[in-house]
C-alpha cells in the first residue's frame, strides 16, 4: 500500500519518542545508551538461558528496559491506531454530550467518559500482555502499563 512505509517510520519515530519519555521515568540510567538499545530486538528475552552469568553466552543479569519500552510503546500506538476509527465516533459524541449536559446543568457532578475508560482498559491490557510476553513479572507489567497510559494522556483515576 502506498505510504505504508512512511506510516511505519512515523509510528517507529513516535514510539521511540514515547519510549524515551518512559525511560526518563522507569530507567534513567539507560538514557546514556538509549539510541543504541532502542533498535535491539527485545524478543531475546524469550530465549532460554542456557548459560550462567559468569560464563560467556546468553545471560541477562539485570533486565535492560530500553528495548522493552520501545516494544511496549509500539504495541500501544498500534492499538490506538487500529481502535481510533472504531472509538472515534463514540468518543466524540460522549464528549459533546458531556459538554451539553454541563452547559445545561453547571452544578452537575463530572462523570468519567465511558468510551475513554474502555480505551484505557484496552490499552492497559495490550501493554501488560506485551510486557508479560517479553518476560517481565506482573507488578512490573502493571507499572509499565500505567506509565504508558499516563504518557499517552489516559490518566488513571
Amino acid at each position, binding site marked *: 500500500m502506498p505510504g505504508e512505509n512512511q506510516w511505519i517510520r512515523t509510528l517507529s519515530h513516535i514510539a521511540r519518542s514515547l519510549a524515551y519519555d518512559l525511560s526518563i521515568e522507569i*530507567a534513567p*540510567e*539507560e538514557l*546514556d*545508551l538509549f539510541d*543504541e*538499545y532502542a533498535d*535491539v530486538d527485545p524478543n*531475546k*528475552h524469550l530465549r532460554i*538461558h542456557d*548459560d*550462567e*552469568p*559468569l*560464563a*560467556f*553466552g*546468553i*545471560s*541477562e*543479569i*539485570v533486565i*535492560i528496559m530500553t*528495548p522493552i519500552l520501545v516494544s511496549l510503546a509500539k504495541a500501544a500506538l498500534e492499538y490506538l491506531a487500529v481502535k481510533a476509527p472504531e472509538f472515534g465516533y463514540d468518543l466524540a459524541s460522549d464528549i459533546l454530550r458531556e459538554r451539553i449536559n454541563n452547559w445545561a446543568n453547571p452544578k452537575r457532578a463530572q462523570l468519567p467518559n465511558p468510551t475513554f475508560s474502555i480505551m484505557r482498559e484496552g490499552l492497559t491490557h495490550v501493554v501488560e500482555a506485551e510486557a508479560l510476553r517479553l518476560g517481565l513479572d506482573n507488578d512490573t507489567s502493571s507499572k509499565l502499563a500505567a506509565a504508558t497510559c499516563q504518557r499517552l494522556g489516559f490518566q488513571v483515576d
Partner: protein
Amino acid sequence: MTICDSKPTPLDPFAIPQATTERFTLFLLLAFFGTIMIARQIFDLILRHTSFQPFLPKDVIAIVVFFIVAVSISMIRHIQLRRMWCLQPLSQFHDDLLSKAVNALIASTTNRKVAVWVGGHPLDQSAMTFTLFGRPQFMLGRGLRMLVRKQPKLFETIIVHELAHVINRDIVINSMTFAAFRAVVFIFFLYFVVQIAELFAIFLSSELPQMFYVPEPQRIAWSQIDSLARASALAPIFVLLVLEHRRLLRIREHYADWRTASLIGEDGLAALLTSPNSGDKSARYRLLARHPSAEDRFRALKNPSAFLRAGSFDLAFAAFMTALTAYWVGHAYPPAIRDLKDLETVLLPLIAFTIFFTAYLSMIFSGLIFRELVVCSIRTESEYWKTWILGGASIVLGVELVYLFDEESNFF
C-alpha cells in the same frame, strides 16, 4: 583490594579429586601418552598397506602432530570466537564509563596487562577470559555496558571473577587442557577413520568374492573387524577423558569463585549466583557443562571444605585415571626404548616423572581412603601429616602384600 600474589589459594592439599594441579598434570600426561599410543597404531596401519617410509621416528612424528594439532586447533578456535562474537577492542567503543571501570579493576587487582574485547549481543551481560600467546584476553558482552550503569557492584563481581582466573593461572591451564583435549579428539577421530577406511578397502578389493570361500581373506577381514572393535573399546576411555576435561574446567570455576570472594566479599557473587536466570540445571548439564551450576557454585562458596571433601566416586574416578595413565605410559615405554634409541632422551625424563607422579598420586589416594576411614575430616594442620603417614604406610603395606604372594620374590 590490593595487588595479589600469583599463587592460587590452597584449600585442602589432600583433596586430590578437587585439587586441579594434580588433575591437570594427570590429564595432560594421559592425553600425551594416549596420543602417542594411538598414533603408533595409526602408523602401523598405514605402513601395513603402503611402502611409505617415515623420514623421522614414528613417535617423534606423533609428538609433532600432537603439538601442531593442539596449537592449530586452538588458534582456529580463537579466530572463530572473534568472528562469532564480532569482538572489537574496548577503546573502539568510546565508552568512558566502561573503560574506566574495567581498567581501574584490572589495575587494582593484578599487575598483568590484559587485553579487553567487547562483543556479542547487546543484551549479553557475561564475560569470558582466554589467552593468546600468554597474554590474558577478556571478552566482555556488550550488555555489560548497561550493567556497569545499572548495577556497578554486580559488574565489579563479574570482572573480578575473570581477573581471578588470571591470578589463578587458569587461562594457561585451561588453554593447555583444551589444546590437549582437542589433539586427543583429533587423534581418536583419525584412528577411527583409518580403521574404517581399511575395512572398506578390504571389502571393496578384489578379495571380496573370495572372502566367504577362501579362509585367508576371511581371516584378514575378521582381523580388521577385530581391530575396529578394539578401536571401539577406546570409546569409554574417550568418554572418561571428556568427563574429566569438563570436571577440570568446572573446578577451576570454584577456585575462581573463592578468589573473587576473598577479593571483594561474598555478597556480590552470591547475588549473581542467585539471580533469576541462574535456575536449576539438568543432570546432563551438570555432567558435561564447562561451568558448574549456580546451585553448586553457591554451595561451594558457602561451604568450601565440605564441597572439597573427596567423595567415593571422585576418588575411584581419579584413581582409575591414574591407573590408566600408568598403563599407557607402560604401553609407550618399551617400544620407545626398543625401537627409538634417539628418543630416549626426550621421553625418558617424562616417563620417569610420570612414574613418580602416579606413585605420588597413589599414595595420596591411599592416604585419603585411610583418612576417610580413620580421621574422617581435617580440621587442623597436623592432620595433614596423619594423611601423609597413612598414605605412605598403606603403600608400604601394599608393596609387602604384593611380594608376599609373589613366590619368585626374595623381598623378605
